[in-house]
């Protein structure tokens, strides 16, 4: 159906553009690297402190990285007024939203996966056996952030002070996602039994569904006059 095809076209377009320019990717990667370096320097002396705080550090890095990617998601549409073309396109705005969401999710997850070896090196973490569950948590958290972030990116790209407004609007609202992701990650990394921190993963997925549905429902008002 044309709804699905429209989503496909948006994902294809964003994928091809990003693969060729690597603009978002490099910005996200270098920023995350800087964040990790600063944190690793701050905690270099205290191994106990690292254990307590590493889950939070990981999600701070992921969060800021995600915001950069989410911002770029719609600022690229401002070149040559491409946003106009999307606005008067007969394709459903919901399809455009979902396409952008999928593309964002893919890019941000890719960068996050690339950061994992860095976490292992700088903070001496054993992540390999924990990888499958960690990936699930990463998808859950990134999806939650991206669901709201894609909506707010579409909104803030049309206003002044857009780079500063996206984090100002997104971060308070994304608090539940951060709580869930950090708790689940902490449970996983500190070796807790799965059933103990599993509720957090379930909660994350519930948040993801709610945020995606709300954003999908509301996107028409943001992308259409």
């Amino acid at each position: 159906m044309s709804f699905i095809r429209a989503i496909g076209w948006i994902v294809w377009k964003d994928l091809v553009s990003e693969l060729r320019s690597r603009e978002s990717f490099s910005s996200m990667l270098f920023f995350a690297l800087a964040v990790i370096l600063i944190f690793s320097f701050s905690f270099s002396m205290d191994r106990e402190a690292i254990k307590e705080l590493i889950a939070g550090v990981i999600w701070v890095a992921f969060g800021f990285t995600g915001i950069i990617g989410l911002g770029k998601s719609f600022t690229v549409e401002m070149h040559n007024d491409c946003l106009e073309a999307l606005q008067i396109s007969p394709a459903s705005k919901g399809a455009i939203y979902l396409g952008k969401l999928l593309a964002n999710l893919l890019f941000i997850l890719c960068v996050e996966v690339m950061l994992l070896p860095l976490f292992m090196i700088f903070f001496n973490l054993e992540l390999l056996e924990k990888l499958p569950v960690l990936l699930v948590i990463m998808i859950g958290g990134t999806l939650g952030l991206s669901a709201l972030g894609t909506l707010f990116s579409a909104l803030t790209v049309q206003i002044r002070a857009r780079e500063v407004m996206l984090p100002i609007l997104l971060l308070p609202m994304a608090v539940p996602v951060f709580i869930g992701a950090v708790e689940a990650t902490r449970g996983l990394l500190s070796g807790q039994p799965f059933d103990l921190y599993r509720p957090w993963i379930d909660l994350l997925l519930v948040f993801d569904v709610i945020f995606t549905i709300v954003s999908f429902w509301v996107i028409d008002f943001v992308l259409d006059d």
Partner: protein
Amino acid sequence: MSTFMLWLRKYQGWFGAAGGLLTATGLYLGLVASPPDYYQGEVVRIMYVHVPFAQSSLLAYTALFGASAWYLWKRDPLIDHVAHAAAGIGVFFTSAALVTGSIWAKPTWNTWWTWDPRLVSFTVLLLILIGYLMLRMFIDERERQARFAAILAIVGGIDLPIVKFSVEWWRTLHQPLSVSPRGVSYAGDMLTPLLIMAIGISLLFTYMLMVRTQLLYLRQLLDAKKGRLLSQAHL
């Protein structure tokens, strides 16, 4: 001048007077006439303002949420003024609630801040309201400003219960509730002044909302007049 605004102007005085009267009564009863609490001494008196402030802050967000939903449905620019006004007043009451809450917390729990679900939720609420006002500052076109702001208010309204819930869950895992504001049991003679204050401050809130709505409306009329004069001196 629209009939809605005229109606507001007509009745605002009643709300203001009633609110002022009740608040004054409540303050007298609470600060002067009632006894200090057995456990918490004099500092519990701040509850007489803290609780009503918190309530009015939620009242403000409810007004904001309702007006935003109404605006998206009916696209009535006057309702948008109500939403805008509610957000501004909400910032005042939320900040006041947080500050008075902190003042109460320090002598009681020996901390300015703690991971209490309501404290975190109110902080997020304040941040959302500030974000709302900033958003409106950065959009010039009136229709788009109203529309985007309404979206933000609605998404925020859905988000806030989720925030509260997630912090509650977190807290039950990490800090079993030993002491919390809920643990405060109100002695009988505390209840009356508290109730009077709650109603009084809510009435004052309504009065402030009515006044500020008119203010925003008049400011917009003024801008429109300026704009018309400008466009007559077109090119």
